[in-house]
């Protein structure tokens, strides 16, 4: 996880995005694809509603993750507001930790335990991003370039790793293949066009029949 945020720091350095705002994307967005998307679209001068739409679409995967985490730790008759607090920290790392390391924590303490963990992770990353930023500054160009390359490499491999249905694989392939076309057709809407077009096409080409894969 720290590696991916160091890579993100290098990316911010590379695009010329302000460091303070870049580090605080971890607090305001807290999901790396959304953070990268915000930074790249902002730097290419996209208008705010388009950025918001695209960032929001990358965050859809937080919905099943939140359900997964809450489903494990919530108590049936407890107050609901702590669930909204925990949801704020829900992202892939917390989801993995909720699967792997909750067994040592007594059930009633699991939710506050995850909130504390999420808080600690979030603010650690606020510190780690500037480390990547300054490393990119002092390392030789080839090494900085490799650090920046960490982000696309990590995202693509994570998509492959979390793919469950055939339409997931089709969406990855179509998103990749349609991107150059979308860039030619509409440089300002390239990501949204490739994402919405490729995703919709993938979904209807490989309409999912099997359910129950998310649990």
């Amino acid at each position: 996880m720290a590696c991916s945020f160091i890579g993100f720091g290098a990316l911010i350095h590379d695009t010329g995005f302000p460091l303070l705002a870049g580090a605080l994307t971890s607090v305001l967005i807290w999901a790396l694809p959304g953070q990268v998307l915000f930074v790249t679209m902002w730097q290419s001068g996209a208008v705010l509603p388009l950025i918001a739409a695209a960032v929001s679409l990358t965050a859809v995967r937080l919905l099943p993750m939140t359900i997964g985490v809450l489903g494990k730790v919530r108590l049936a008759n407890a107050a609901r507001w702590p669930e909204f607090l925990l949801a704020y920290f829900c992202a892939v790392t917390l989801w993995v930790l909720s699967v792997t390391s909750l067994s040592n924590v007594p059930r009633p303490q699991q939710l506050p335990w995850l909130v504390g963990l999420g808080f600690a992770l979030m603010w650690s990353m606020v510190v780690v991003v500037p480390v990547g930023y300054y490393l990119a500054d002092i390392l030789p160009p080839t090494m900085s370039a490799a650090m920046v390359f960490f982000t696309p490499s990590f995202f693509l491999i994570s998509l492959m790793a979390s793919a469950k249905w055939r339409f997931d694989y089709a969406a990855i392939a179509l998103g990749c293949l349609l991107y150059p076309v979308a860039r030619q057709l509409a440089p300002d809407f390239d990501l949204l066009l490739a994402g919405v077009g490729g995703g919709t096409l993938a979904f209807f080409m490989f309409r999912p029949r099997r359910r129950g894969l998310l649990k």
Partner: protein
Amino acid sequence: MSASLWVLAAMVPAGLVATYFWRVLGVVAVTRIDPESDVLLWVRAVSTALVAALVMRMVIVPSGVLADIALWHRLAAVIIAIAVFYMASRSTNAGTFAGVIAVALLHVMLGQG
């Protein structure tokens, strides 16, 4: 500094609200909505394709130091990352780092070719 503040102000609607929305829906959904309904699976497909397109954008039209590495080296590194991911029995770490190392090695060994 003022540039930072301006970006941060923009990030509240386009970042915080845009992402927290789905988490809140998750809290509500945990008792109500089916996360595998057609609409949400379609949105999942769009989300996946959007991140894939974002990957392509970072690889094909990078902004700074990465642009000094030849395009075909960057594309080859992506393919190597995927190949290693499968060879290492779907290890995310192996795949990711293979891509990073490949892009640096291709550049150092083959230059601007």
